[in-house]
């Protein structure tokens, strides 16, 4: 699954950058995330409960940040094992730029995800949808949190899929 999107956030790039590097924010925004703990420099231990079609599992794994250029861009990538459900891998290239009016941030991201084992075997048809929904939920939650408006309609622009 690959997805490229852009969204406008009404706070400064510095504020967005701080949030992108805050494990508690990331945990709060990632649906089903039970653990998001720093284990070192740009490394985190993560547990996420996810449901893809008939398969429900808790994925435990590691997330790392790479190609970090504060406060402009980074790559966040992770992989997790879900026992018999198989495994999942995902990454997002995230970049920020100030909006022309100066008051906000335009956040662009390119997400890729893949799965293996039972998930791929019985849920491959559903994985794309589930991964897109997870990405949508994460970034919508992120925008709402930063905007301070939990009910706001988040307008995400899809560039390519």
């Amino acid at each position: 699954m690959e997805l490229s999107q852009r969204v406008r956030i009404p706070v400064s790039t510095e504020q967005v950058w701080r949030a992108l590097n805050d494990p508690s924010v990331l945990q709060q925004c990632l649906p089903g995330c039970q653990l998001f703990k720093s284990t070192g420099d740009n490394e985190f231990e993560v547990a996420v409960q996810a449901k893809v079609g008939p398969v429900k599992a808790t994925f435990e794994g590691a997330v790392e940040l790479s190609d970090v250029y504060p406060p402009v861009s980074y790559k966040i990538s992770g992989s997790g094992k879900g026992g018999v459900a198989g495994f999942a891998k995902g990454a997002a290239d995230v970049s920020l730029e100030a909006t022309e009016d100066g008051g906000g941030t335009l956040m662009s991201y390119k997400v890729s995800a893949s799965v293996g084992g039972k998930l791929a075997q019985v849920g491959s048809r559903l994985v794309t949808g589930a991964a897109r929904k997870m990405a949508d939920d994460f970034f919508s939650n992120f925008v709402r949190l930063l905007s301070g408006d939990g009910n706001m309609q988040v307008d995400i622009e899809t560039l390519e899929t």
Partner: protein
Amino acid sequence: MAEQSIGKSVLRKEDMRFITGKGQYTDDVNLRGQTYGYFVRSPYAHADVGEIDVSAAAGMPGVVAILTGKQVAEDEIGGLPCGWMIHSKDGSEMKQPLHPVMAGSKVNYVGEPVALVVAESFVEAKNAAEMVSVDYSERDAVVSVTDAQSAPVIHEDAPANTCYEWELGEKASTEEAIASAAHVTTYELTNNRLIPNAMEPRAAIADFNPATEDLTLYTTSQNPHLVRLILTAFIQLAPEHKLRVIAPDVGGGFGSKIFVYSEETALAWASMKLGLPIKWTAERSESFLADAHGRDHVTTAQLGLDAEGRFVGLKVKTTANMGAYLSTFASSVPTYLYGTLLAGQYKTPNIYVEVDSVFTNTAPVDAYRGAGRPEATFLLERIVELAARETGRDPAELRRINMIQPDEFPYQTPVALEYDIGDYEASLNRALKMADYDTFADRRAASEAKGKLRGIGFSCYIEACGLAPSKVAGELGAGVGLWESGEVRVNPTGSVTVLTGTHSHGQGHETTFAQLVASRFGISVDDVEVVHGDTGKLDFGLGTYGSRSLAVGGSALAKAADKVVEKGRLIAAHLLDEDAEKIDFEDGEYRVKDSNQAKTFQEIAFAAYVPHDYPLEDLEPGLAEKAFYDPGNFTYPAGTHICEVEIDPDTGVVEIDRFTAVDDFGTIINPMIVEGQVHGGIAQGIGQALLEGCVYDDMGQLQTGSYMDYCMPRADDLPSFAVGMTSTPCTHNPVGAKGCGEAGAIGSPPAVINAVTDAVGVPDITMPATPEKVWRAIATADKNAA
């Protein structure tokens, strides 16, 4: 006197127990103290295996033991052998990398077993298996045959992931013939990978008796003696006389149950190690991952024609996928079961075929209904159809002018086989008539009038069954003999017990073989019992595959029955006080020629076992005979399939409106059973052509791992088939039978694709021709026409 039953559609003796749910399949067998096995399988297509942590699993309720690939290696069990040695063009032996019973330090396909959990119940075994933690380090995987030879190496002892580079035929003369041909048709194709999907998943129970040191293995096998031979002689699990393999009722095989797999082997080893009976029954998901798959070829071919349309040369280059390891007979499928069939029904004088077989990070690939012959037939019947279209000839007529004629047999092809007999034009003519070919244009016009596309497609197939003779097969690399055994035991009351080394898993042997033997003795089919599938009861046998059972196994039984008749004649001669040569045996009676002096078959049987008045000084008592039969040649069933489709251009959905099959299977014992075999084969062939396709993603993850994504043919995908027969009995076996089990799956896929492409007006649509592909092809054809 019983009615002569050969050629009669006797109802199947076995069906009552099957349709009333009383079949005894492997999973129906339950032993006292039985435990359950569950396999931990790799979720990665290619990964190094680090530590396997079983500590959490070992403490789970009911767990008896957890065994890993490391322990298999320590006990020096395996690897699993491949039974056919293929030599490359340069004379070197094929590469046969170690095929471990369970993976050791590296896994090479998704689903490969890495550990076996044994517990007191199935659920406990499965729950504990989920707690086994394996430390994998993923590597890049290679999946497609076209990438394999340039990808990172899977097995260090198979450079360029190449198993062998094989050839057959004359290269120079073929290239010359094509170079000077009036027309050359070129065709590139992919023969889609299939998953067998027998109705009954694989299962096994291994039962080691520590007191006697006997090991009994119940397993879903098409050939229990072969399982015993491989587990004892090659894997050296137990001495051959201490292993009994029982394959009870088996619910379909299609080739996938020929092979000796990891699971049954691991179970047998674990039972010996633990001294416990262990049962394993595959879940459907495991069948998708770990049954040997079929087909998976990529091919380029050129067919040269002279100005009159006669084929002058055929040149073929194929790359075949072996999967991660060589399965039991994998190496023979794209070589001696494929290249040798490329002459088809035609007099093509020059043929050359090259086959590269490659390893990939996918499940092993091996024989699947037809095994090599569907791939050969698809290539040949597609390229012939394309040649007809390109040269503006009627596809039926182009085939006709190239066919081997009845007076040209025996016919030596340029690709090793010598066809003994056939009348291909008779089948073609009969099929054209049954399919109403001369009024096809009217039906096409009627379809067009309602906005539909109609097309017709032909396939004139030949196949080679009853793989033989052993001597020749041995010279070509076979690791086993290819004869069959049969035993006919006449009981004192005159009923008969027949033992055969072939195995029935849907073919109806209990009926066909009973008819064969009953007719030889002139007794009722009900008085004959057929026993098969137990190495403890039978001498030896090579099982059922390659449509061999009647042609080879039936021939052994015919020989044994004839020996019984001859011994009976000597007994009758004594009782009737007449010379044996003056006694006829007919309709169940030994009769002195031109007299009413006679003894029934039953009277003779009784006399043989109660020898109070018996020539004991010349003849042993009893009436039971054995025979071993090694065929002199393959048999060559052949026929014509014609498919007619109607396509909705708005949706791309293909409806098979008519399907005609006319087959020459030689002598037919039970037409109903033969027709059933043809129906099943065609259904599988249509499945390959329109619906089924195994897909792995780039990481080697199986995407079609359930019935949500792997589409099997269903009743509403199929028309009512029109099946006809012609007959030229096999010249070299005593039954005259050729074999019918695979013909449907061999002949039908090219007929379907020829019909679909004829309707759409494009040269090719790759299998499976799903509605999406057909719809896109229609859109492209429309655009090109505009």
